[in-house]
């Protein structure tokens, strides 16, 4: 039996007269890789902020890892990981210091932090870099490290906001290996991207246009439904009529 770890029901966010997110309803299962796509300004970031417990919805319902987005935002934050292209690590701390810092924030014990950091450094092959400042790492390594830090406390769900923007094609794929591994361990992945080939790596995808979820299905079914050769065409078909941009 599949077990939903994200459930939303007519989740809505208004800013004055502007409806940024309008009655979105969907479920994401444990261990699923869920692609959350949309044009610039479609409302993805606002929706994600509600799901992460950072923004209280205007109406509708949602539970994240079993916790309510209105009342249990602190529990939500403890049970999720978050990484974006913009905010990830502290650049003037070393690799090891970043791991220890985030481990501490998420309440891991010193012993857990030690075990986790050894594991992580081996897995990423960062043995030579542990004492280097993060600022000196190439972007691709930063992103991989940043993902690993976001799942350090073994969250139920990890939210990734355009994690691979500007990264070279080889590193982008290594990044997806990390995503697959985490999903295999049962971590639910909620990811946004502008790379349509990455949309194909997701189990299911939703496409948001002007605050509304216009389509939600597996990549295969979306392509069939839209008689499209690839996800790029599906996206174009749905988003070209968008009235909003960021």
């Amino acid at each position, binding site marked *: 039996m599949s077990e939903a770890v994200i459930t939303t029901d007519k989740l809505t966010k208004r800013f004055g007269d502007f409806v940024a997110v309008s009655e979105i309803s969907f479920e994401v299962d444990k261990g699923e890789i869920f692609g959350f796509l949309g044009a*610039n300004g479609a409302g993805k970031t606002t929706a994600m902020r509600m799901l992460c417990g950072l923004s209280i919805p205007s109406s509708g319902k949602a539970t994240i890892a079993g916790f309510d987005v209105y009342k249990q935002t602190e529990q939500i934050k403890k049970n999720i990981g978050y990484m974006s292209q913009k905010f990830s690590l502290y650049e003037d701390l070393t690799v090891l210091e970043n791991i220890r810092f985030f481990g501490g924030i998420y309440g891991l014990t010193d012993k857990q932090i030690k075990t986790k950091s050894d594991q992580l450094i081996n897995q990423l092959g960062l043995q030579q870099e542990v004492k280097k400042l993060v600022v000196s790492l190439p972007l691709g390594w930063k992103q991989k490290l940043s993902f690993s830090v976001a799942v350090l406390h073994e969250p139920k769900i990890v939210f990734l906001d355009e994690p691979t923007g*500007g*990264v070279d094609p*080889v590193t982008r*794929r290594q990044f997806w290996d990390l995503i697959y591994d985490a999903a295999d361990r049962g971590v639910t992945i909620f990811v946004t991207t502008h790379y*349509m080939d990455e949309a194909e790596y997701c189990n299911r995808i939703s496409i948001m246009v002007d605050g509304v979820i216009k389509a939600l299905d597996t*990549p295969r079914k979306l392509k069939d439904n839209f008689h499209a050769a690839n996800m790029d065409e599906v996206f174009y078909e749905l988003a070209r009529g968008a009235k909003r*941009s960021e």
Partner: protein
Amino acid sequence: MEQNGRAENAVVVRNLVKVYGKEKTAVDHVSFSVKPGEIFGLIGPDGAGKTSIFRVLTTLLLPDGGSATVDGLDVVKDYKQIRNRVGYMPGKFSLYQDLSVEENLNFFATVFDTTVEANYHLIKEIYDQLEPFKKRRAGKLSGGMKQKLALCCALIHKPVVLFLDEPTTGVDPVSRKEFWEMLKQLKTQNITIVVSTPYMDEANMCDEIALIQSGRLLSVDTPGNIVKSYPEQLYAVKADNMHKLLKLLRSYDKVMNSYAFGEFAHVSFKDPQVNISEVTDYLKQEGLADIELRTTAVTIEDSFIKLL
């Protein structure tokens, strides 16, 4: 060098080097040339050195080695003339946020000693979309609109060469397509365009491209020639479990190279005479189903991965 009052090459870069501090070599002996009227793409990830090259060519940064010319003029000696002849749209939003759309455009025209009217034909198609918002402050525009205004401002003095540094980064696929349509329009106006992007699929919109990584050029040619020079036959394969498929391919001794590529995995084999049914059988044996294996066309992204 000069032919009909125009340089033979719009841009020439020879052994260009740019070093920051003691160690950080951002641009490492880069050479390429751009023909007048073509769209030339610098394709590579963040940190490849694209912006440093743009800043040298727009005379905002001095090279530490090598040389470069723009419209036949030297980037070091003739920087003042170059500045009149180029348009530059930096990666980060470069307009005056507190000026209106109209004011920004007038400002850039005035700085270059011209008027909006004089070259209006160049920007008309793009500006038509901005016209309804001309009294709005630039800072209050949407991302797509800001981008269009920045392009208008970079064009208003009718530059010989237009430099666009990552104009489509972080932009959704629909807006990216629109932006490239605008560039194609500009090409018909005979403006040379040098554009950088981390999106490999945009390479095909260029006449010629340079693939760049860590300050070094991997290849310079037409997109068509780059994919043609791919040394092996490439195959696309899919099955019911992508993650497992990727793992299996990676550990399979017949495989030279394999990686995810959208719905498929792309694979090349060590033996050019590889028996495809043998591969399919192997994958079946290992527990995969719905296997589909066929030859596929090489893309720029495949070439980039191969050259890394």
